[in-house]
C-alpha cells in the first residue's frame, strides 16, 4: 500500500505531457517545412544550418523568457523587458561606454538591467503597485530614457569583440545558442533545485501561505524582477551583437513574445506554476514558425493570419493530448477559465 520511492519525484505528469504536446507541435511544424520545401530539407548541411539559425534567432528572446517565467510563476508580470533591453543596449553602446571596451559594455548592460529590475521590484513589492502597471510605466519611461540617451539615433557598436559574439561558434554551435543553453540550465536549476525556486512557486501560488511559512514575500517579489532585469541585460548584449548596434526602439514588443512563450510553455498566468523547459519550447515554437514562413516566403499579412491560427492550434493540440492522456487516468470537470 505504501509507496516508497527512492527519490522525491514530483508528480509533474501534467507538465511532462504538456511539454510532449509542444514537442508534437514542433515536429508538426518541421513536417510542414519538409512537405512544402522538400528541396531545402533534402540538403543535410542546410538542415543543420537551419536548426542553428532557428536556435540563434530564439536565443535573445529565450533568455528574456526565462526571466519572465520566474516573474510570472511568482505571481507578477513584466511588461518592461523590451524597454529594459533597449535601455541597456543603448546605454552600453554610447560612445562613452564603448570607450571601456567589451567588458565595460557588458558590465553596463548587466548593471542597467539589474538596476531597472530593482526599481520595478521595489515599486511592486514595497510600493504595492500592481506589477502590470508598474512595469507598463517602466516600459514607457525606459524607452523614453533610451531615446534621450541615444538622441533617437541608432548607435553603432564599433567593438569587434561584442560584434563577433553573434558570429562566433564554439564546437560548431553559435555562441548565442550556448548562452541560451546556459541561461536555460541555470534557470531550471534555480527553479527546481534551490530554495529560491521553491519560494518562487510558493509566493506565486499562495502568497498568504508563503507569508505564514515565514517567507519574506516582498523581498522575494523584488528579487524576481531583478532577475528578469538581469536576463534583459544579457539579452541586450546578445541583440546588440546581432545587430552590431542598438537603438531606443529595439526589442519591440518582446514583452508580448516572452509572455506568450511562457504561457504556451505551460506557465500559469496567475502564478504558482510553470516550467523553464516549457518556456524554451514556447520560444522555439515561435522561432520555428517564423522560419517556416521565411522558407515558404509567405506574405506578411498571410503570415500573421496563419500565425494566430498556429498559436491556437498549438495550445489546443497540447491540451488535447494532455486531456486525452490524463482522462485515461481520471476524469475531471474543472472549467479552468482565466
Amino acid at each position, binding site marked *: 500500500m505504501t509507496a516508497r520511492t527512492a527519490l522525491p519525484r514530483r508528480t509533474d505528469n501534467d507538465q511532462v505531457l504538456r511539454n510532449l504536446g509542444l514537442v508534437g507541435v514542433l515536429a508538426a511544424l518541421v513536417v510542414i517545412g519538409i512537405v512544402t520545401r522538400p528541396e531545402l530539407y533534402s540538403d543535410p548541411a*542546410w538542415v543543420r*544550418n*537551419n536548426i542553428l*539559425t532557428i536556435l540563434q*534567432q530564439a536565443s*535573445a528572446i529565450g533568455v528574456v523568457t526565462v526571466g519572465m517565467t520566474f516573474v510570472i510563476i511568482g505571481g507578477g508580470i513584466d511588461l518592461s523587458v523590451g524597454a529594459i533591453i533597449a535601455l541597456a543596449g543603448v546605454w552600453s553602446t554610447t560612445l562613452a561606454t564603448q570607450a571601456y571596451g567589451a567588458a565595460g559594455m557588458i558590465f553596463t548592460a548587466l548593471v542597467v538591467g539589474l538596476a531597472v529590475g530593482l526599481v520595478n521590484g521595489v515599486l511592486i513589492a514595497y510600493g504595492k503597485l500592481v506589477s502590470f502597471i508598474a512595469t507598463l510605466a517602466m516600459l514607457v519611461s525606459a*524607452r523614453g530614457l533610451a*531615446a534621450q540617451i541615444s*538622441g*533617437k*539615433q*541608432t*548607435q*553603432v557598436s564599433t567593438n569587434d569583440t561584442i*560584434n563577433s559574439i*553573434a*558570429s562566433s561558434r564554439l564546437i560548431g554551435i553559435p555562441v548565442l545558442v550556448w548562452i541560451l543553453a546556459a541561461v536555460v540550465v541555470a534557470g531550471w536549476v534555480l527553479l527546481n533545485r534551490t530554495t529560491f525556486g521553491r519560494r518562487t512557486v510558493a509566493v506565486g501560488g499562495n502568497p498568504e501561505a508563503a507569508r505564514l511559512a515565514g517567507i519574506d514575500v516582498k523581498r522575494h517579489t523584488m528579487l524576481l524582477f531583478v532577475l528578469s532585469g538581469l536576463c534583459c541585460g544579457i539579452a541586450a548584449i546578445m*541583440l546588440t551583437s*546581432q*545587430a*552590431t*548596434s542598438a*537603438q*531606443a*526602439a*529595439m526589442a*519591440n*514588443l518582446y514583452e508580448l513574445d516572452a509572455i506568450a512563450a511562457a504561457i504556451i510553455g505551460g506557465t500559469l498566468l496567475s502564478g504558482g506554476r510553470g516550467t523553464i523547459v516549457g518556456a524554451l519550447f514556447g520560444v522555439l515554437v515561435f522561432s520555428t514558425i*517564423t*522560419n517556416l*514562413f*521565411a*522558407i515558404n*516566403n*509567405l*506574405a*506578411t499579412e498571410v*503570415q500573421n493570419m496563419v500565425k494566430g491560427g498556429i498559436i491556437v492550434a498549438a495550445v489546443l493540440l497540447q491540451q488535447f493530448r494532455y486531456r486525452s492522456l490524463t482522462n485515461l487516468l481520471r476524469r475531471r470537470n474543472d472549467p479552468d477559465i482565466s
Partner: protein
Amino acid sequence: TSNDPADTAQVKTDTSGNANAATGPKVVIGFSAPAADHGWIAAITNNAKAQAAQYSDVELRTVEAGADAAAQRAALATLIAQKPNVIVMLPHDGKELNATGLEAMRAGIPVVNLDRAFPSAAAYRLQIKGDNYGMGLAAGQYIGEQLKAKGVSNPIIGEIPGIDSLELTQERTAGLNAALAVYGFKVANRRPAEFTADSGQAAATALLQALPKMDALWNHDDDQGIGVLAAVKQANRGEFFMVGGAGSKTAIEAITKDDSVLKATVTYSPSMASSAISLARLIGQGKGMSDLVELQVPKEITLASETITKDNASKYAKLGF
C-alpha cells in the same frame, strides 16, 4: 494612398532605344522590405514587384521581413542561403542590418540598399536613398517663402512628424529646422504621430489645442496626413496652411483641388524601389547605366525631394502612391 491597391505601381516601361533593355542573362533578385503597415512601404513592395515583372530576365524572390529588425535578419538569413544574384533590401534600420549586409556581400551577393543607409561601405554595392534631410529642407523652404511673402514676422509653426524614434524622422526634422533658421523662424510645437491616420488625427488635435493660432504646419507623411486634415476640419480651423510629405495620391488630389489647408507636399517617392530593381538587374548582368560613361552602376544615388504645389501637381499626379 488609395482604396484600390490594384495597379498604382510606378514602373519604367519606356525602354525603347535603350541597349540595356535587351534581354540578358537571367538575374535572380532577392528582395526584402519591412512588413507594410503603411502606404509608402506597401508602394515600395508593389513597385519592386511590378518593375521586376517588366523584365523577362529577372526573377524576383521576395522575403517578407516581419515586424522588426530581428525578424528581417532572420528572413534575410534564409534568403542568403538561397544564393540569389543580387539582394535588394529596404532595411528596418540600416545600422541594425549592417551586419547582414556585410554577410551577404561576403557571400558574394551584391546588396542594393534602399532608403536606409548602412554605416559600413563594405555592406552594400549600391545605395539608393531618399533624401530625408532634403525633404525637411524643402518643406522648410516652402513654408519660409510663403510666410515671408505674406509678411508674417513672428510666425507660429507646427510640426507633426512620424514615429519619433526613427532616425529618418530626426533627419527630416533637422532639415526643417535648418531651412526655417534661414528665415529666422522656428517650430513652436511638435507632436509626433505614428504614420497612421488615426495617430495623425490625435497628434493634430493635440497640436491644434496647444496652438490656438497657427501660421503653418508641416506634416511629415501624407498617410497620417489624412487624419491631420480630418482633425483640422473637426477643430474648425483654417487660418494656416499645411505642407505634406511623401507625395501620396490623395495629397496631390487635395492640393490640386485646393479646398483644404494642404497647399503643398514634398516628395519622398517609393519609385526608388522600381529604380532599385532596374539597377539590381544591371548589376547582376554586369552592365552600367546607359546614360553614364561608367561601365558599372555607381555606388550611391540620392533622389531629390521635390515640392508639389497646385501649379505643378498635374505633373506628379501619376507618381502619387
